Each structure stands twice: as structure tokens, then as C-alpha cells.
């Protein structure tokens, strides 16, 4: 076991080839990690090794390459399942990402379990991918989508929980961590309230599994959806963890190869879970890369990463406070905020902030962050967002702040 100690950020940075480049003549400062993270050499090598040496389809061939590919692919499933604290690797379904994982639940679980008058409880804080699938499901079943509201610091208003969780509530679907504001939601408390009325609980972990140790058993939830690419893995691979008994009773998601047991003229039978939900040739390389990402992060240690990010956010908030005309959105307490700083500036629109920062080599996101309800809550069309990860440094925060001074000099 690695000894828990501070993270050697320069050593970490040296593992990420993309960080060592100049953009517009300046060293890259990559602060768009909530959109997607950079990839370490270990992940790039795993992808490359699969395609160069082990490339074959899984669960099909008797030949050596197919055996190797299958072992690596199923080995990755076990690693990623363990990453979220699942005891049984077969409870982990590969998906294209968090979005597909949520849509899978909405389709394969929701259509058979919701009916007119039932309620789905989400929140105003959600990413569009944890809103729109439920709106679509509501339209098809006659169920209703209800919302937990936000307070002025972008935290969920839990006083409403008792009123909003009713005996009609069949599903509670809440993000672990907000992508737009970085708010860490009290998911255990919300899960408990939902569980008390017999509702199923889904956690959108796209930003959660990235920064914290996740234990689905401790959280006492039914579904946990997350993505590989935000936590050093490749794009196009994600996962849905779900309780085995739920997966067993759920209908298939898509039909095709890999998901069947026997196919007849009129009817077919399904493969065991999780393969029942994995029609077609899967993203084999992606899954293996995701497994390598989990190994990489485990090696460094999530406690060390969390402490490093917390120090960065604390420093960034201090420096932001000293810039005139900057408004920071989201919780003030570091206990309630993840590695995201969403902000606006007097006079300068977030797009202009982003363009000026880009000219300085600093990459941030500007826009509504797929969270238009959050923007509406704060009465802004968009925000600029700096999001940090294990390889960012305080010097990079300084570069960001210097860039914001440049914004001020242009727009003041």
C-alpha cells in the first residue's frame, strides 16, 4: 500500500505528455478538467498495447488473442467495480459514459417501473444528462419530474426534502458533485430520505468518482453512473454500477450480439448480467484504458489527490477574492466544494474571459456547462469555470489570476 503523503505534483505532471506543451507561445495551463481530464502515459500505453498486441474481439474466439483481450477487458471491469466499492464485478455494466448509463436506467428500468402519477425527484443543480432522460421518461409514462431547489450558495435546499419525497416518488436521481459549481451534495442523506419511501436511488457520479473515494455500499444507493474520461481514462467509456437484483429484473437496453443467450425466430433469451446490457462489440480498448486509469489513480492515492485539490481550491478562492469585480458561484466552505471554481467578472462576458485566457495559454470553460437551470437560478447566461485536477499547481492558479488581470485591463 502506498504511504499516505503529499502528492509530488511535478512527478505527476511528468506522466501526462499533453501537459508539456506551449499554447499560443505560452506553457499550457489546463484548467478544463471538469470537461475532460488529460491522460497519463499508463493509459495511453494500455490503449496502444491492446491494439498493437492483443487486438481481438472478446467472449468469442477460442484463440490466444481473444483470450488475452477478454482477460484484459474483464480484468478492467473488476478494477473499475472495485473503484466504486462494488463487491461483485458483474454488477458493473460498461456504457459510453455517464449519459448512456443514465439513459440505460431510464429506459431499461424506468419504462417498466413508472406509471402515471409517479414522481421522479431530481434537482435544479443537475447536468442536462440527469434532467432530459427523466423528462423523456416522464413523457412516455405520465410520471412527473420534481426538483430540489438551490440556495444562494448553490447548495440543495434539504428543508424541502420531506415535502418533495412522497409515497409517489419512485426514483431519486442526484449528482454526487455538481459540474457547474463544484457543490458536493449530501447524497447519503438524500438517499436515506428516498429509501424511506421505497424509491430507487441513482447517483450521477460523473464528477464524483473523479475526486473522492466512492463506496456504493456505504452510500446505500441503487445505481451509480460515471465516466472514464474525466478521471484520466479514454473518452467513450463509462459505467453503470447497479444492484445485482435490479439488473437481473431489468429488461435489456439494446438488442444485438453479446447480450443474448439463445435466439429463436420469435423470441430470444438473454445473457447473464452485465452482458445482457452490452449489445454489440464493446469499447474493449476503452474499458482496458479505464482500468489503467483506475490503477494509476490508486497508485497515487485518492486521499493525496483530494488534499492536493483542496489546497488548490483554497488558494484559488483566496486569490479570486482579491480581484475586483469577480463573483464566485457555489459554496464558500471547502467541505462542500469540489475542485471547480465557477465565476463571472463585471463587464467581461465569460466568452471574452475565455478567449483572453486562451491567448495566455490558460484553458478554461465558458458557457452554461450543460446546466441551464443553474445559470437561471443565478440569473446569468453563462459563467467561466476553472476546474482543477491532480496535476495542477499553485503557479498555474497564479497564471489564471494574471490572465484575469489582463481581462480587467481590456474591459475596465
Amino acid at each position, binding site marked *: 500500500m502506498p504511504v499516505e503523503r503529499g502528492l509530488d505534483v511535478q512527478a505527476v505532471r511528468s506522466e501526462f505528455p499533453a501537459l508539456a506543451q506551449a499554447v*499560443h507561445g505560452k506553457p499550457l495551463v489546463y484548467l478544463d478538467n471538469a470537461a475532460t481530464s488529460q491522460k497519463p502515459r499508463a493509459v495511453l500505453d494500455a490503449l496502444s498495447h491492446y491494439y498493437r498486441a492483443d487486438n481481438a474481439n472478446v467472449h468469442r474466439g477460442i484463440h490466444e488473442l481473444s483470450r488475452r483481450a477478454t482477460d484484459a477487458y474483464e480484468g478492467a471491469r473488476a478494477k473499475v467495480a472495485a473503484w466504486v466499492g462494488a463487491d461483485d464485478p458483474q454488477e458493473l455494466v460498461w456504457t459510453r459514459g455517464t449519459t448512456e448509463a443514465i439513459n440505460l436506467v431510464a429506459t431499461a428500468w424506468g419504462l417498466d417501473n413508472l406509471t402515471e402519477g409517479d414522481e421522479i425527484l431530481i434537482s435544479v443543480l443537475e447536468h442536462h444528462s440527469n434532467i432530459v432522460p427523466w423528462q423523456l421518461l416522464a413523457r412516455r409514462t405520465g410520471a412527473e419530474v420534481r426538483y430540489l431547489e438551490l440556495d444562494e450558495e448553490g447548495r440543495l435546499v434539504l428543508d424541502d426534502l420531506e415535502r418533495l419525497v412522497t409515497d409517489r416518488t419512485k426514483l431519486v436521481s442526484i449528482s454526487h458533485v455538481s459540474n457547474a459549481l463544484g457543490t458536493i451534495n449530501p447524497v447519503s442523506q438524500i438517499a436515506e430520505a428516498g429509501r424511506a419511501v421505497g424509491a430507487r436511488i441513482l447517483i450521477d457520479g460523473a464528477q464524483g468518482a473523479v475526486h473522492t473515494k466512492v463506496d456504493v455500499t456505504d452510500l446505500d444507493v441503487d445505481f451509480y453512473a460515471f465516466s472514464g474520461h474525466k478521471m484520466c481514462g479514454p473518452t467513450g467509456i463509462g459505467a453503470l454500477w447497479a444492484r445485482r437484483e435490479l439488473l437481473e429484473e431489468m429488461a435489456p437496453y439494446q438488442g444485438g450480439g453479446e447480450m443474448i443467450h439463445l435466439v429463436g425466430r420469435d423470441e430470444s433469451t438473454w445473457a447473464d448480467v452485465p452482458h445482457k446490457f452490452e449489445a454489440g462489440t464493446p469499447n474493449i480498448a476503452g474499458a482496458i484504458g479505464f482500468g489503467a486509469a483506475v490503477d494509476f489513480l490508486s497508485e497515487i492515492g485518492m486521499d493525496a489527490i483530494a488534499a492536493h485539490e483542496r489546497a488548490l481550491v483554497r488558494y484559488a478562492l483566496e486569490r479570486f477574492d482579491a480581484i475586483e469585480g469577480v463573483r464566485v458561484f457555489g459554496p464558500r466552505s471547502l467541505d462542500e466544494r469540489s475542485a471547480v471554481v465557477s465565476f463571472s467578472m463585471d463587464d467581461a*462576458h465569460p*466568452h471574452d474571459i475565455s478567449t483572453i485566457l486562451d*491567448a495566455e495559454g490558460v484553458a478554461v470553460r465558458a*458557457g*452554461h456547462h450543460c446546466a441551464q437551470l443553474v445559470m437561471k437560478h443565478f440569473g446569468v*447566461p*453563462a459563467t467561466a469555470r476553472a476546474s482543477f485536477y491532480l496535476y495542477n499547481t499553485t503557479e498555474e492558479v497564479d497564471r489564471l489570476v494574471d490572465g484575469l488581470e489582463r481581462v480587467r485591463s481590456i474591459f475596465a
Partner: protein
Amino acid sequence: METPKLNSLYQQLILEHYKSPRNKGDLEDRTIEVHMANPVCGDEIRLQLRIEDDTIESAKFMGQGCSISQAAVSIMTTLLEGRSLSDAEDLADSFTSVMHGDQDAARDKALGDLRALQGVSKFPVRVKCALLGFDALREALRQHDEERDN
């Protein structure tokens, strides 16, 4: 690609139009109104025109968004008053060509102050911001045509 210079983007004239937009507000006697938004970034414009006898008599707008989108529509409205519909169409075509990097089109004197936006063409992700107002203008002209034909 050579790194474009920020000061070619943020010309004084653009910042000035952004801070003090011209023709911003409601046009009471408008004959056509078009709402145009860029859903990716939240820029939006409500363009209002009074068109009589194939001439734009007046133009106003409401909107919010980045400096480029708002300055471009502000400058655009100052150029539309008294312009024939076909002239307005030509202006839209000419400006669009400039945004797509056409150096010759940039010499078109009819563009007036819009030439201050030439630097935007060096920032491909911002071109859609500059064109939002003209997208609204094209849509307004199309709707005007449609109504006239009916």
C-alpha cells in the same frame, strides 16, 4: 498556426460599442422581429426592423452576450437605416465573407465600422458570435419576403 493577437480582436471601437450599444431598445413601429440565439454559449439577440417599400427604415435590437456578438449587432444596426433590402443582403454576404477570411471582401467600403471586426476571423471559435446579428438579419429578410408573398 500563427498566434493571433488579442488587440486585433478587442479593438477600441468594438469595446466601445459593447459598453455603449447603439439602437438598443424596443422599436415600437416594427414590422418584423426575429429572435436568434446561440444555444451553445447563451448569446442572444432580438432584432427589430421597420421595413417599408423594400427599404429598412429603422433597426433596433435587444440582446445579451459577449462583446463580439453585441458590438457586431450594434454596428450592424447603424448601417441598416435607409438601406434597401438587397443592399442589406449584400452587406450580410460581404461581412460573412470577411469572417470566413476573405481578404478582398474586407476592402468593401460599404462595411464601414464592421471592418473593425476583421480580426475576429483569426479566432475561428468566435466567428459565430460576430455573425449572430447577421443571422438574425437574414432570417428577418426571409420572413419579410415570405409575408409579402402571402
